[in-house]
């Protein structure tokens, strides 16, 4: 090699935006450099260069989800979008905002709060997670039942193509069918089609009142079953979650306010979270009816938590997977038809890794269940087999309920043997064809997405 990628980049852009790749390891691969473009011009130069040189780029926002995806085929340069962090346009009266992709969710929400509004999705570590990163992953948070996924709120997008060409889709208006809805294509594409530069969202006005109910149940099954009933009642919450005792004990440790009288003593105890927001009177009525319903469904205790403590709980629940992940040997997110949540949870709950059952965080309204198997002291070889077997079993259960199972965390040795996204759907050929057309040189996150895309 004539010169290192870092040197080439430094020549291209000037040294100040290029850093060494140490500390940016992805799935065991250490990139040669980290480049942090300051404007579109530089970004375009980088992409053109990477395309012509066949350099693998890993776009990066806050770096909170870099573990997600298959082991990259190549990881040459990390593309840090942190400098793109401005609000480009915010019109509170229009209830829309356009921001750059590197802006963190926390600072976006803070900015929108000045107009009495918010963008209705959550992500773990909101003070690090960026708009671009959240869109690339496309996942929702604890209130997805009511608000859906980030895709529902994205109305316009600006993307730098792999050829270094600025493109846009959608616009700044809340209703738009002009041209193809590429917003949907880029959302959840894990940065494999282009680099998201800016995004426009439709917003909602802040809810004047919010609160939550925290209920303990003797078993997770009882908690999920009560949650389903609650979701189908007039007192339906914005989001409803059931977590196992292992998860709730962490809650008890970390949130003082919630630790009283929860009846968490029993080993199998599960917690139900039900989040409410809206107008005061209606929210009160919903919470009263919901509390009665939960008790009738066998809750040991139902505790009502008002704002701002309830918001703290929401944040905690949003962040919980990220906090628990490091202590887990295997984390799988299962998405199924919502009606199958209980059965999926029950069946997956029996899957053992090194003799241990998983902790669970279930959203029975949205139909997603996170399974977290605790770290083991067993020998690596046995654990590996056990994990591979658990992944296999989980996928069988998920597909039985028309769903999917994504491995969010596992040992690298296991990751190298599986597609973390699961079995390819019959539309994979179309997906591949899209990827080939958008990224003919395969420079963006090569190999990380479904089916090796």
């Amino acid at each position: 090699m004539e010169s290192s990628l870092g040197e080439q980049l430094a020549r291209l852009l000037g040294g100040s935006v290029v850093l060494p790749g140490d500390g940016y390891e992805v799935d065991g691969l250490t990139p040669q450099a980290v480049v942090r473009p300051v404007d579109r011009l530089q970004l375009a130069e980088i992409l053109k260069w990477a395309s012509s040189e066949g350099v693998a780029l890993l776009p990066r926002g806050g770096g909170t989800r870099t573990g997600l995806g298959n082991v990259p085929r190549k990881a040459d340069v990390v593309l840090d979008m942190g400098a793109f962090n401005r609000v480009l346009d915010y019109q509170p009266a229009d209830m829309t905002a356009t921001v750059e992709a590197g802006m963190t969710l926390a600072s976006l929400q803070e900015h929108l709060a000045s107009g009495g509004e918010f963008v209705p999705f959550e992500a773990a570590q909101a003070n690090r997670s960026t708009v671009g990163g959240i869109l690339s992953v496309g996942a929702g948070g604890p209130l997805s039942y009511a608000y859906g996924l980030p895709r529902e709120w994205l109305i316009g997008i600006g993307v730098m193509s792999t050829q270094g060409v600025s493109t846009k889709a959608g616009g700044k208006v809340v209703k738009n069918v002009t041209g193809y809805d590429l917003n949907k294509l880029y959302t959840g594409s894990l940065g494999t089609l282009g680099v998201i530069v800016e995004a426009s969202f439709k917003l909602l006005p802040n809810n004047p009142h919010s609160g939550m109910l925290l209920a303990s149940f003797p078993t997770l099954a009882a908690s999920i079953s009560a949650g389903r009933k609650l979701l189908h009642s007039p007192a339906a919450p914005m989001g409803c979650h059931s977590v196992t005792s292992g998860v709730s004990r962490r809650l008890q440790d970390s949130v003082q306010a919630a630790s009283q009288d929860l009846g968490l003593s029993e080993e199998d105890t599960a917690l139900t979270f039900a989040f409410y927001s809206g107008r005061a009177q209606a929210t009160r009525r919903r919470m009263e009816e919901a509390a009665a319903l939960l008790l009738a469904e066998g809750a040991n205790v139902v505790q009502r938590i008002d704002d701002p403590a309830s918001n703290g709980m929401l944040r905690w629940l949003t962040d919980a997977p990220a906090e628990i992940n490091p202590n887990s040997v295997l984390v799988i997110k299962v998405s199924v038809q919502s009606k199958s949540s209980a059965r999926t949870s029950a069946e997956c709950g029996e899957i053992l890794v090194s003799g241990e059952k998983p902790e669970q965080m279930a959203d029975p309204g949205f139909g997603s269940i996170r399974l977290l198997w605790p770290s083991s002291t067993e020998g690596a070889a046995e654990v590996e087999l056990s994990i591979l077997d658990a992944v296999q079993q989980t996928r069988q259960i998920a597909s039985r309920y028309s769903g999917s199972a994504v491995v969010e965390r596992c040992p690298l040795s296991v990751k190298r043997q599986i597609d973390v996204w699961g079995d390819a759907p019959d539309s994979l050929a179309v997906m591949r064809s899209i990827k080939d057309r958008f990224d003919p040189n395969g420079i963006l996150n090569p190999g990380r997405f479904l089916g090796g895309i």
Partner: protein
Amino acid sequence: MDFKRFLKDLQGIVGAENVVYHSDDLLVFEYDGSVDRGMPEAVVFPNSTQEVSRVIALSHKAGVPVVGRGTGTGLSGGAIAPPGGIQVAFPRMNHILEVDTENRLALVEPGVINLNLDTHVRKFGLRYAPDPSSQKACSLGGNIAENAGGPHCLAYGTTTNHVLGMEVVLEDGAVVNLGSLARETVGYDLRGVFTGSEGTFGIATKIAVRLLPVPEAVRTFLGIFPDVETACTAVSTVIEHGIVPAALEMIDALTIQAVQKVTDAGYPDDAGAVLLIELEGLQDEVDEIGDEVEAALWETGASQVRTAEAAAEREQLWVGRKGALGALGGIAPNYFLVDGVVPRTQLAPVLGRVADVSRKYNIPIANVFHAGDGNLHPCLLFDERQPGALDRIVEAGTEVLQICVDAGGTLTGEHGVGLEKKEQMPLVFSEDDMAAMVLVRDAFAPDNSMNPGKIFPDGKKHTPHAHPPAHGMPA
């Protein structure tokens, strides 16, 4: 290609009774709800996904372009047959296959009528939220193609927010599933990008849609205002209260006059604008927010405010809005509806500039629109039988679109680009933007044989109502 042979093969697939090819009959398949026309070579009514797949594969092999047709209510020429093409229509595939109340979803065939689905699922306390004005007649397949909207999309989003998954047939006949019955799926969101692709990616043959619970209470407000500007202020005031109504609709003075000519909707003669607001939710919510809405309407200068909660009375308040477009027929025999969208705060100034266009071209323009989401519907009134009228209308319409784009808006909010607005696409999108879009189309339909000639400018002059030859082919 031997067309006779092709027809025979089509008949072999779907049965002779399900192929229309006589030139007399094809006359009724040359139009949709727009001002465009184009005669198909044949229309096929398949009975199953398998038949759709075989028909499309056969056409692909024969080099015959294919367009899906729902019920032909589209307003952008989306279902107009491309030259030399055939239509695949879905009157035989109109079954609601499953209503899953636990999962709150319905599995339907593309020919199911939007309102029929909603009516059916209401028996289970559920609803299908997207409600385009043509919901009595339009089909779900067409709704998917156009990403249809409607008054209640303000609160609930458009079709794309309600589609979970679908089975589609691609141009080579391949049957592929997009999305799933679960809310989250892996891989690219092909379901999302397929919705609103105006039939250029393929044809949906089975659709899973989300259903929502029917709200406990609904209250409708009708405010009479002296002029559109004041009514727009009222809209802003309501929104400033942190209220997102289920629907927020407006009609202007010219429309009010037209409505009152046909039916007494109870609007005073000197009314300058009528605002309709609908709230949905728990009774407590509707009560609390309702008081604020009513106060806001009075505060901003409404001369009258009427409210209703019972279904029949609410229906009465909606009469004028729902009959508005048709009532325009009493002023002029034709209207050209421009579907531009602007940021909500730009409504009043944009309407002012639209009025300038009306004066400049001496074309009456009536406004009936979704004020809540800034989706204008200026209706340019004309008589198509006057020579040159349509050309002037298209010119004036383009000017209106330019005004919308200048105000930060776009060409179409819910009707699609189709044939009608494809030459205006460069007002909003650069060559590069459109090239990226075409890449996606190429991935779905490499030979561009699904509904070709739509959405993207091709320099062919838009000639609505150009009469095709009387006899396309001997039959």
